[in-house]
């Protein structure tokens, strides 16, 4: 699944963007994982995933959040909140 066909559920969009950044299948991304601990992940790839999420929803993820040692679930929750606030 790519971000383009992941629908409107932030969980699907976030996982698809992260998976694409490291060339993994979406089911290989565990929501309990810290972003930096996803196999193959590095800072530039996290930023690429965030760009895709931001552009998809037209939101801005606060950079202070990205500094933190956030998990995939944390990012999904944040994106869901930002999307809700933007509508």
């Amino acid at each position, binding site marked *: 699944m790519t971000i383009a066909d992941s629908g409107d559920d932030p969980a699907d969009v976030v996982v698809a963007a992260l998976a694409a950044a490291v060339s993994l299948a979406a089911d290989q991304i565990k929501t309990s994982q810290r972003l*930096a601990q996803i196999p193959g992940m590095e*800072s*530039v790839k996290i*930023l*690429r995933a965030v*760009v*895709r999420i931001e*552009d998809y929803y037209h939101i*801005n993820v606060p*950079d*202070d959040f*990205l*500094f*933190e*040692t956030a998990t995939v679930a944390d990012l999904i929750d944040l994106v869901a909140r930002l999307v809700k606030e933007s509508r």
Partner: protein
Amino acid sequence: MSATTSTFIRVPASYARYDVDTTVTAGLLGLPDGEAGELATTHLPYVRDPGRGPLFDHADVVNLALFHSNTGCTVPDLALRFLLRFATAPQSTWYEPRWWLVRVCPPPALLDRARDGSAQLSIEPADLAAPGVVPLDAPDAAALRQARPTAKAILPPGYEVAVRITGAEATVHDGRARGLYQEMVDALAGGAVTYQSVNEGLRARHREAWQLGMADCVVASRLLADRLRDAGLTARARRGYLLGLVGSDHAWCELYEDDHWKPMDLAFAFLASGGSGTRRINATPEFVAACCGSRFNRLLPGQAPDALPLVHLDGEPAPPWLPVAVSAHPGEAR
């Protein structure tokens, strides 16, 4: 990625340093090696090395990424997008005290050479006596480090500093200084001079770079400092780090006025007022105004005078394709 040939100025051959191979080029462009090599050889000057294949100037490759990417995901695009995001945040956040754990890490390839004695690597230390910069005491620094328990130890000459940086809202009053500053902003915004990546050889000849129609933050800050001094004012160019998700080398000019060094940041002002496409910040007029006199809480100067390079290898500026990684982690002291 599409590419044309007219939007940035290639480094003239007499100043070029053709030492970037297709693997590094691919990383910067975010493309597979073959595709990146084909694109770069089509649009950039290069020399062909029998062993390494085509070699490009690093600044040309960065410009190709910045000017012709339609993905917004090349390394230079990402740096610009995230580093300058603070400009769109509320004004108070530009100046409020901010605690930073800054880690400056040489890449393994350089460290290995330094440690086996085959090369001399030096990194300019941060200027911890700069206005607004206060080094944290050991307990506060430890509190910041606790937020990053997984961070690896940094080997010298890399270093880590924990600082509190406080910005200051101010404005430059001198009419001559404001005029010279605005003249340069207008030249960049009007396209008479292209804001683009410039290699270190041309940065050292900043007047010539400007005449060639190209400038980056180093060229612009050095030239503005020259012009301010020529006008009888006290000014200096500074170089340090812009702290953010990915730290970046940055340069700015400072004017001494009212017993203070006031930053004059042409690069920020251009990107906030005249940049185009992915190089434009959606900043407010207040941010543009702040670029002429205010000090932001995300800039950590190095000790090098005249905006000289921060990293040297065997007495020469280190190759830009072996960048020193700068990570800046904000936090709260105890």
